[in-house]
């Protein structure tokens, strides 16, 4: 076989200098340093536990679903179910094998990946809405399983699970700062992994399958392998997020925490943040975490707390729904795109004068 590259090189008159856009990376490091050092110093405990930790975990779940839906193009409404698998599997590893938390978490993620792999198998034959219904089958079956089989919650009367202890190689993580650092570290590492994946041949294959699967096969991509891999990796992320949600955020949880409305929430995060964007997951999660707070504040100041909590919740629901529709119509690439176009407009703005 001829070496195409060598032969082609004869055409190249000057050496190729591929300048990649790396300016974003400095911001990332700065952000990370800020998250590790500044936030715990300046933020109070309430903020860390009630806002930042769930925000980070939801971002992680968003990355999981975005890998499957935003990158590989397979719509799923089963995110909640896979989060539950991660939570209950991690619990089993903690309880029965007495593993230290990070290892139990990792293995819990792997179990979720395995379940995701199994429910992803039909994707080789089924597409679109039909596949989405498969993901609903997963969601409902898993919910039922973790409610009806008491072994999963160690026969507790409340059908909930809570970590026996939360230590990492001897470091006690049972305080709010410890939980924060645990979540931050896991999310930072897995975000790095996700960025590597979507920028690699694996990620390009996913996007090719998403954009046009017949063409992907013709281009030499193993489409079924690609789809099923996306299911497994996506479920790994969701599983880890589910376990963190249970043990690092809620403390104890039952399968009710991972119902269909959780699946919708994760889907909304990636629609608002941006399908096919890792940074969008953080933006979407921040948005979905902060909007209720903002509404609360508005209601407090405008109506001095006279607004009924139930009503507020319904208003919030309607606003979320309207936003989803608005984004789908106006900015299908989500807030990530919106922000980057603002930024580029801002950067050329002084030049107009």
């Amino acid at each position, binding site marked *: 076989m001829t070496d195409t590259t060598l032969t082609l090189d004869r055409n190249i008159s000057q050496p190729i200098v591929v300048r990649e856009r790396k300016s974003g990376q400095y911001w990332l490091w700065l952000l990370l340093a800020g998250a590790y050092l500044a936030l715990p110093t300046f933020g109070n405990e309430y903020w860390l536990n009630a806002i930042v930790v769930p925000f980070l975990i939801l971002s992680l779940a968003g990355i999981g679903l975005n890998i499957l839906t935003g990158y590989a193009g397979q*719509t799923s409404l089963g995110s909640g179910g896979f989060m539950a698998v991660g939570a209950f599997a991690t619990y089993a590893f903690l309880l029965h094998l007495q593993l230290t938390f990070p290892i139990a978490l990792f293995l819990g993620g792997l179990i979720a990946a395995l379940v995701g792999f199994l429910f992803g198998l*039909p994707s080789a*034959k*089924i*597409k*679109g*809405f*039909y596949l*989405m*219904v*498969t993901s*609903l*089958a997963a969601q*409902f*079956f898993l*919910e*039922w399983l973790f*409610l*009806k*089989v008491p072994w999963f919650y160690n026969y507790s009367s409340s059908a909930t699970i809570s970590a026996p202890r939360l230590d990492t190689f001897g470091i006690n993580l049972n305080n709010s700062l410890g939980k924060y650092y645990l979540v931050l570290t896991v999310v930072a590492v897995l975000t790095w992994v996700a960025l590597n994946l979507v920028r690699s041949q694996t990620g390009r294959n996913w996007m090719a399958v998403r954009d*046009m*699967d017949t063409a992907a096969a013709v281009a030499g991509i193993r489409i079924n392998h690609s789809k099923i891999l996306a299911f497994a990796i996506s479920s790994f992320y969701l599983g880890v997020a589910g376990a963190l949600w249970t043990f690092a955020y809620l403390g104890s949880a039952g399968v009710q925490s991972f119902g*269909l409305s959780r699946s*919708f929430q994760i*889907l*909304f995060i990636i*629609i608002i943040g941006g399908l096919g964007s890792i940074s969008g997951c953080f933006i979407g999660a921040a948005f979905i975490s902060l909007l209720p707070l903002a509404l609360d504040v508005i209601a407090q100041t405008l109506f001095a707390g006279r607004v009924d909590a*139930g*009503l507020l919740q*319904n*208003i*919030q*629901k*309607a*606003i*979320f*729904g*309207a*936003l*989803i*529709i608005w984004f*789908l*119509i106006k900015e*299908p690439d989500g807030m990530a795109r919106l922000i980057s176009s603002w930024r580029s407009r801002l950067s050329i703005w002084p030049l107009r004068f």
Partner: protein
Amino acid sequence: MTLFLETLIGGLLAGTMYSLVAIGFVLIYKASGVFNFAQGSILLFSALLFVTLLEAGIPFALALIPTIAAIAIMAVLIEWWVLRPLTNRSAMTLFMATLGLSYVVEGVAQGAMGANVHALDIGIPDLPIFVGDLLISQFDLVAAITAIALVAILALIFDRTRIGISLRAVADDTRAALSVGINLNRIWQIVWTVAGITGLVAGLLWGARQGVQFSLSLVVLKALPVLIIGGFTSIFGAIIGGLIVGASENLAEAYIGPYIGGGITSWFAYFLALLFLFIRPTGIFGERTIQRV
């Protein structure tokens, strides 16, 4: 044997309700290519509005008028604000938009009319009666008859009226329908209204049995496997699919349920649907596979 028959008949009758919800889906899917997840919320909204009017002292027949008017207005607004701006977008985008829509409708419905459970009496006693040896729910029987009547009316409308013919034209070939001057936007508005009315009927029947409350919107989740089994494009398929799902999940709950902890109706229909998918990917009566959305 009696138990088996009773379970089967009970399931079939319950299945007619699933069919009703699924028919609303099929109508919208045929006319506008939208997989309308908000069908359940629209059902909740209309049932809630109706029962609120009843509780305000408005008589039954009179309450229907503003309810149906509200459904029609909602259909027009949806067409303006959601469908029209999203014309020519992928089916999956439209589906996600209906997810958002379901949140809006639920939020507005419950925000405006409260989240309490409303009792609804539509004059059918919920007592079982004997038919021969078999104990059959009178309520289910009436519900099934209502459903059948509704389907018959729909069939008449689609066969005999101008609107029905235009709708079929749109479903057959949208571009050709446009070229002969059919107003697509108007068709969408009408179809969403009709689907909303089937939703209202289903909502009242379900609401009379278990109270008008949020969980009504979840019947949409029952309708999905019905659609997979019956096909997205066939009203007849939706009916048969509903019957199959109703009967089989009732039987499964009665005969398999006790061995594995019960409560399997939440997912049984989905697994049945999956089985069907592998055997016949377009449903029993479906016309074509939805390739790549």
